[in-house]
């Protein structure tokens, strides 16, 4: 470990025990199952049958006992690499030190930050005004990740006046909020504030579930004619499309936990714990953490690539707990009942119906999104045939915040807004 990596900065990824146990099981299990694989006793996914057959043929040219030490050694080495990657992450010196953008307005705990301020040479009076709306689950700063890698500042440099809505941690009033409250009492009043200030129509841009909230707001505000366009980035719509098999059991379990907590008045019923969300994300692909940290163990810790990795991981493990009613809305009305796709998600008496929108828009879907499966986003795209469509390489987060986003996706988004 180099001199720069002497101090432990963080103790993630969370939940740490789950990540370590999973990678340990993966590689010890692989070794133990090798004889079973040779005998054809391992259940192989249909897409991998040919690959498995080819491998079995090649194995049959060798003495099985001679191969096992090679498998053991490789498996141990993979486990060691992943653990080294986790350690490297924990000791990496990067810490986010981004100066917050000036506060434009605050309602309750929700803030809206002005990223045009400080960019007077780039942003003019006739610049398009955009409000970026992130998800309620993770912090808003994914759109302003690093000083030298900020979507918000890049938009301003491109002559767009950006505002970032930061939901912040729910406080007294927001603790009783459901999704409808966040839309009606926070998002819409903030849109009005910015509109009043500039006396111009607003481009609304939602990321992840921020897209769903923006879509609802755009529909409710349609008669007021204050929304210029709607950009939806990695926004889910059909919550049952490509849903992992275990998800329904998982949501049932979370809800049961919540009911039990209400009886015993413990803290989980007050706010959805962040670790529960991390558990949910982990369950979407149980091999991702191992692959990610193993790859990271080979990065030069001083490289930009390593720093970006740490910045995104820190963000993914950060966040505020959700209010109980928001958690229930997401788990019951979205994930269980699939209300948006079944045309029964109501906000302020409106059934939220993308098809009814009469504003221009842009929909962006990532190629390898595990949080919002392609089929879920596609269901929304099908309902918005007049929207421009961009397929972005990468996953749910890397698409918008990865090192290539600055040269690939951000200019495409800016070009639509202009």
């Amino acid at each position, binding site marked *: 470990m180099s001199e720069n990596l002497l101090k432990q900065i963080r103790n993630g990824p969370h939940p740490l025990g789950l990540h370590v146990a999973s990678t340990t099981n*993966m*590689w010890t*299990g*692989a070794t133990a*199952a*090798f004889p079973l*694989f040779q005998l054809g006793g*391992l*259940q*192989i*996914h*249909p*897409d*991998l049958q040919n*690959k*498995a057959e080819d*491998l079995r043929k*090649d*194995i049959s040219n*060798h003495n099985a006992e*001679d*191969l096992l030490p*090679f*498998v053991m*050694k*490789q*498996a141990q080495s*993979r486990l060691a690499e992943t653990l080294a990657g986790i350690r490297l992450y924990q000791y990496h010196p990067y810490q986010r030190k981004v100066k917050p953008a000036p506060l434009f307005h605050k309602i309750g705990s929700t803030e809206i930050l002005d990223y045009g301020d400080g960019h007077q040479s780039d942003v003019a009076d006739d610049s398009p005004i955009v409000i970026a709306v992130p998800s309620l689950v993770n912090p808003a700063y994914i759109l302003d990740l690093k000083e030298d890698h900020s979507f918000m500042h890049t938009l301003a440099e491109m002559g767009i006046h950006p505002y970032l809505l930061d939901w912040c941690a729910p406080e007294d009033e927001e603790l009783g909020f459901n999704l409808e409250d966040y839309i009606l009492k926070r998002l819409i009043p903030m849109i009005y504030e910015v509109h009043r200030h500039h006396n111009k129509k607003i481009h609304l841009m939602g990321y992840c579930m921020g897209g769903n909230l923006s879509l609802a707001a755009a529909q409710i505000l349609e008669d007021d004619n204050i929304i210029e366009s709607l950009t939806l980035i990695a926004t889910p719509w059909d919550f049952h499309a*490509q*849903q*992992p*098999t275990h998800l329904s059991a998982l949501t049932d379990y979370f809800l049961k936990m919540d009911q039990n907590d209400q009886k015993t008045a413990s803290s989980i019923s007050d706010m959805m714990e962040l670790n529960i969300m991390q558990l949910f994300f982990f369950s*979407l*692909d*149980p*091999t*991702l953490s*191992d*692959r990610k940290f193993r790859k990271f163990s080979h990065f030069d810790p001083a490289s930009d690539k390593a720093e970006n990795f740490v910045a995104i991981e820190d963000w993914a493990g950060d966040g505020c707990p959700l209010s109980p009613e928001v958690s229930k809305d997401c788990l019951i009305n979205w994930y269980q009942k699939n209300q948006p796709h079944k045309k029964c998600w109501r906000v302020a008496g409106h059934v939220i119906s993308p098809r009814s929108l009469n504003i221009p828009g842009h929909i962006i879907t990532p190629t390898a999104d*595990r949080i919002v499966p392609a089929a879920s986003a596609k269901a929304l795209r099908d309902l918005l045939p007049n929207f421009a469509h961009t397929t972005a390489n990468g996953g749910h987060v890397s698409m918008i915040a990865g090192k290539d986003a600055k040269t690939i996706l951000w200019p495409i988004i800016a070009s639509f807004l202009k």
Partner: protein
Amino acid sequence: MAKKIQSNIVHPNNNSTAHSKEKQSIAERYLDLWQDNIRHWATDPAAMEKWLADIVKKQTKT
């Protein structure tokens, strides 16, 4: 001494080294397949459902 040095030189046609490399490559392919297999099952709900249904069917037959 010359003999010792000679014995340490890896000859391209050295059978045992070639075999080792092949075994190492097989081990790597197996481990890649192992992880890929877990990922495929975990992210393919329809296939997973079918697999579970087949197992239950087999068990009820026996």
